[in-house]
């Protein structure tokens, strides 16, 4: 299943489809235009490029994607947050947890290493959590829970330098305080499974009855190289600018893309997150991959831009 949000295809796929020198030059022009125009319009450019490249599609053209993956089903719910409220059980709004089944307010790296996991591969002892989704006040847990680790978002020369996510790193993505769909600090993205005709939105969308509500969330992929967390839980990480990591956050790491599919559709008025409206969607990640397993995947899948299987093999 593609990790790509509808209509925001990764650059690699666009480039992978055509091979002639003219296309290479066009790709260079595209990348340069992205450098000068920033990521928002770069995405629009990609959209146009994808349309142009999508037909006719060469059957044997391989898709080069720097990717490894963990599928981590729902484990439990708690009003706990070991990043924002460590040691303060019951202090948080309700969270749904995925992966490590031991996560609670007292979770630290050592505790995660002792825990068990719902993830495939079972080597991933990381913890992932999001605000719980409610439909008419009843909890709805996602049945599709895929956590992609990607190279996309930075240029290929930077992808080649991507370092493993350090053990114990905590990342929060999204803004629980976002004020509306026009709020640029919201990176929430809701869409409908297999129904690309429904425009994605930062708020909940109305999905047809044969569809599921999807949430895409991209985590920041540039690390300051020093801190596993920061007082605001954000400033040790940053998003890339123009395909590069900023000088303040020079270490490129894999981009975590959380893709959740909820068994719910129809009128979004009855939906609510524990943090509020759809645009307050956020995700938390506490890295507990074994260092050697993470390092192998970064080396064999990410740096060389190869799509790996669940075991992290090309």
């Amino acid at each position: 299943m593609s990790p790509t949000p509808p209509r925001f295809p990764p650059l690699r796929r666009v480039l992978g489809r055509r091979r002639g020198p003219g296309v290479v030059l066009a790709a260079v022009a595209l990348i340069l235009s992205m450098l000068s125009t920033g990521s928002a319009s770069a995405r629009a450019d990609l959209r146009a490029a994808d349309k142009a490249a999508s037909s006719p599609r060469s059957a044997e053209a391989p898709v080069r994607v720097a990717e490894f993956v963990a599928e981590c089903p729902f484990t439990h719910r708690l009003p706990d947050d070991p990043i924002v409220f460590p040691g303060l059980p019951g202090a948080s709004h309700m969270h749904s947890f995925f992966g490590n089944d031991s996560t609670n307010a007292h979770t630290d790296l050592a505790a995660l290493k002792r825990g068990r996991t719902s993830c495939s591969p079972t080597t991933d002892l990381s913890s992932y959590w999001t605000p719980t989704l409610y439909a008419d006040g009843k909890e709805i847990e996602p049945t599709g829970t895929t956590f992609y680790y990607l190279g996309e978002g930075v240029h290929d020369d930077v992808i080649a330098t991507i370092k493993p996510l350090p053990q114990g790193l905590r990342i929060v993505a999204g803004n629980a305080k976002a004020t509306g769909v026009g709020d640029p600090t919201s990176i929430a993205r809701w869409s409908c499974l297999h129904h690309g005709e429904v425009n994605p939105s930062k708020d909940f969308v109305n999905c047809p009855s044969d569809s599921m509500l999807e949430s895409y969330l991209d985590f920041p992929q540039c690390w300051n190289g020093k801190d596993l967390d920061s007082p605001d839980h954000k400033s040790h990480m940053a998003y890339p600018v123009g395909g590069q990591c900023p000088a303040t956050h020079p270490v490129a790491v894999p981009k975590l893309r959380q893709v959740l599919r909820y068994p719910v559709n129809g009128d979004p008025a009855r939906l609510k997150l524990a943090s509020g409206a759809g645009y307050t969607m956020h995700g938390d990640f506490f890295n507990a991959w074994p260092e050697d397993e993470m390092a192998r995947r970064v080396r064999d899948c990410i740096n060389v831009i190869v799509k790996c299987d669940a075991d992290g093999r090309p």
Partner: protein
Amino acid sequence: MTAATAARRAASVAVGVVLVVLLAAGCGGGSGKPSGEARSTSAARHPATRAPSGQATSGTFNSSDIGWIQLMIAMDDQAVRLLDLVPGHSSEAGVEKWAKPVATACRGELVRLRKLLVRAGVPDTNPHEGHDMPGMVTEDELRTIERAKGTAFDALLLAAMREHLDQAAKIAHSERSAGADPATRKLAASVERTSHTWRARLPRAA
């Protein structure tokens, strides 16, 4: 040559071309962007070697301290807004008599909490605004209570304050052991004590 190899070669040519163009742009100085980016790329090849710390700290404050201070400010702010409704809405002298010193105590807590936040170097923004945090008087609750009068108001007020005080006592108790900053832990001990006191004196709804 397989299709995969061909594609890989073509892609590596593309990467090479991109690199050359990027380097050229960096020298030209016209675009302005690439010089900073080149620096960050080289830094990415040499990540910090020293062992990073774990939980975030800010001076003597750990993440529990900061999380607790921010949450208590958000909760007390809402509680004060609720308690300020009492004079115009309640019909019980006993409720008014109880609410007044509680509101004063909440305001006192807020002053001390905000001083701690300043010392921690954390900006006074409310990360829980608009959220339904456990025990917190929410915007929805406030809207409903505002429209109530007399005994209906009293019942809603006392139920909301009971939840607030129970939660405040509970997380203050945790903060006393989870926190690091001595002054913050001391305030937590005080909040736990006074929450229990006000809770014990909470009037019964009529």
